[in-house]
């Protein structure tokens, strides 16, 4: 990955976490891995699944479902670990995020990204930079840096809530 070619790209990887659709800029995604044996790290927060071996490097893996406050289901053969680059305290950190399934790469023009819904203080919308409407289904565009650099468990709105609020 050439660092200097990172511009606001229009390609987004879409994936599912706990039944919700999410999208992440492909510039932030380095790799998509199949599930492998995750070594648990004792005494770590629950959403920190453990570490895996990514080509000789130790890669921490986060369970996106717990992180995003979604129901945790069985790990299936559709489960993947997407390797992303996150800016934490001005340092780029690589980490893996466990997702329920990976869907596709969408080519999107900037103007089709709708601003994130703003409703009350009940939900945190800092972590999504916008919403995509693809075939009447809403896809939340994640702000990877914000979503994964925080220690908190994030509460996202569900699809229905977004539609209801529109």
């Amino acid at each position, binding site marked *: 990955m050439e660092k200097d070619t990172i511009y606001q790209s229009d390609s987004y990887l879409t994936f599912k976490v706990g039944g919700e659709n999410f999208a992440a800029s492909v510039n932030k995604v380095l790799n998509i891995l199949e599930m492998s044996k995750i070594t648990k*790290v004792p*005494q770590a927060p629950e959403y920190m699944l453990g*570490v*895996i*071996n990514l080509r*000789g490097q*130790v890669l921490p893996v986060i369970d996106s479902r717990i992180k995003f406050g979604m129901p945790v289901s069985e790990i299936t053969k559709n489960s993947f670990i997407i390797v992303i680059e996150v800016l934490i*305290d001005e340092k780029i950190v690589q980490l893996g995020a466990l997702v329920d399934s990976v869907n596709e790469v969408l080519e999107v023009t900037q103007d089709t990204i709708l601003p994130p819904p703003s409703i009350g203080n009940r939900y945190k919308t800092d972590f999504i930079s916008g919403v995509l409407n693809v075939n009447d289904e809403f896809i939340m565009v994640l702000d990877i840096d914000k979503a994964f650099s925080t220690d908190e468990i994030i509460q996202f709105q569900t699809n229905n809530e977004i539609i209801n609020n529109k």
Partner: protein
Amino acid sequence: MDQFAQKYIEEATEIIAKLEQLILEVEKQPQNLDMINEIFRLMHTLKGGGAMFGFSKVTDVTHELESIYDYIRNGKAKIDNELLNISLDIVDYVKVLINPNAQIDEHEHELKVNSLTALKEKFKKNCSSKNTENSDSNSKIKDKNVKVDKDKDVSNEQKITIDESQNNKIIEDETNSIDEKQNDEIIEDEIEKLIELNNSDELIKNFNQKVENKVADKPINTIVQTPEEIKKIQNIENKKSVKTYKVFFKPHIDILKNGTDPLLLLRELYELGLSKVFTVTDTVPVLDKLTYDNTYLCWLVLLVTDNKNAIDDVFIFVEDDAFIDIEVLYEGNAFDDEDFVLNIDKFVNYQIKKYKKNCVIEEFIPSTSTKITPESNNTDAEPIKNEKKVDNLDDKNKETEQSQNVVVKDKEKILHEKILELEKVTKETQLKEKQKEHNNNNSEKNITDEKIKPENISEKVEKIDIFDEQEKEENKFIETEVEKNLNSDKLSKQVTTISSLRVSAEKVDTLMNLVSELITTQARLSVFVESNTNPELEYIAENIQKLSRQLRDNAFELSMVPLQSVVLRFQRLVRDLSAQLNKNIEFKTEGSSTELDKRIIENLIDPIMHLLRNSLDHGIEHKSTRKKLGKPERASVFLNAFYSGTNVFIQVGDDGRGINAEEIKSIAIKKGLLKPNVEYKVDEILNVIFEPGFSTSFEVSEVSGRGVGLDVVKRKVSELRGEIKVETELNFGTVFTIKLPLTLSIIDGLLVLIGNTRYVIPMSVVHKIYAIDHIDLKKSHYNLLVLDNQQVPYYYLREEFDEKSKILEKEQVLVINHEDKMVAIIVDKVIGEYQAVIKTLGKLYHDQQIFSGATILGDGTVALVMDVRKIIDKFSVIEK
């Protein structure tokens, strides 16, 4: 250009380190001329690079300092403490200057430069005063030369002038007048005259004419001389007056891409003295084949100077990127010789042809003949640039007139050797005549020694010297020629062998990572081969195992750095601090060649600094106290390093007052760190000084002694998986011993299983292994086990790690030696030994300090490496 600046910064940092070391060493042996020369050279390099890469401030200060060291290396001045202090100060300042983030105060900079200039003036004055005392005319002239050389405003011709002149008084007067009256009318007149003359040939003619005129004008000045004086002059001429050098400079075609501007180099040469530059242009290809950033030109420079080193220094940065041939052409100023001046083009043509023949010059257009363009003539070209220069012409003339009157025979001889060379090519009748004239001398030049006439005996020795040198030079040239012919690849083959490399730490880290990866992959292969019995595959796997192990050892060696690399810092600290504290302290190091992992060394600097500071400040008594105790006045502080097993020991100690355990105890009790009415061992009491609460108490109560920030030292050391111990004896001194693992990135570990997860425990902490029935464990109280009739507290890791899988009937106990106490940790099973390459867990697992990292096992999965010390600390805190 940025990356070049970066390179310069890297190089400068290295030079600064060397300088610092040298300055410190020179302090001990101020008579060591080699060191002073080296300092001078390093300063010069720093200066040159600074100018080249836009660090003009570096150039400002180093220039002045370099000048001072020039006096010293020429024996004109002596090193004193003040100079060394200033030198170190400047070295520090340069460190700041090359830091791109540093803010530099212009005013402060000016002050620094001014103070340096003042210092230089002081040295200069000292030199001149010495001069007048000194009756030896040789050294007088040399002094003069140096002096003028360093004076920015005074031109190069003047230097030569003074060099060759025998009449010191006149020159001294002249120099003074030059210094004082900058805008002398005469100078202006000369400039005007010179501006009119823009053809260099004309200039030479004019110049020669002038010389002749002057000779006619003032014959008395030179002719009326006692034979003794003449002899002196001859000595000067022979010994160390200027020489004419032929400098051939063919930059590598890509030199511009490396950020070197050949023009700058030529300008630097030009500044060295009287010069004439010839450019070989026929190497330039036709336009459509010309690449704009290639360098096709090469140059032949005839340069009159007395400083061969200076020429070498000009090319110091491009040695590897260019073909450079520097040769003494003529002992003395060749431009004084009319014959030479007249035939200069032929000479140059011949030389260039010679280089062509040796394939040094590649011709791009074979059809055209060699074209030479005289580029500049320093004799009097560019007069506007340097006003003073013109004024020197006067000197010059006077000087030439003198030297011409006292032409030494062998000088002519050398010239004619050169002319003979010319002759071979040009076959000029004029020259032939000339040659005939001196036929006797020339034809027998090979047996000069025998031919020396009796009356010349006084000169004989010198002459032989000269010719020997000359011959040597020639032999060298022949040798190189042969070499050149052998090497068809011309310039590329000029590369000399390199004995050491500078590699960025980043690259080494990458290599280490790759090697680690290879090791783990290899481990996988071994696992695979074990289950697939194929003899051939087994053989290959075994070989790979052997090779990768060797590779690993080599790679790890690369990241090892001798302690020496940081010792300098400590030396400096001791020097500065002992002066500040007014204590006479000697710093000794032993075993500084002991190598340690780069990362360990980096992290050790602060703790060692701290220990040294403590020793100097608190450990070493004041001079008077030492006297009273009958101790040697010069105290010593030492830093020792040695290997023992797989550990490295570093000791920092002093012969000071030592630590009073009773004192420590009473303070510790006051602070609640020790309980009153309890018998403590001395070690236990001393260990209190590493407690965080202890140090602050010392500062507050102002009790003299140690302990300030020792908790930080201990923490740093334990972060490196090391231990620190203190030994002390009252009035005899204190020694801190740091025990460290050889490397951070690889450990001998014990692979254990807890639940379904495997962990690595460093072998070094494991004392014994026992098997135990789980039922027995249940029976035990207060987490205490009885092992070998000893009660040992234990930690049940299954519980601590929240492991929920089925408990095994038999479990295993690892007895750990923790701060001289036995502690047990219980795991499900010990799998075996494992050499673990430790990887960090990364930022996200920063809070999980109980693990020092993770390692990748043979099957590709990850195992965590336990930091047993932290585990014990953590879980015992919970129990409290």
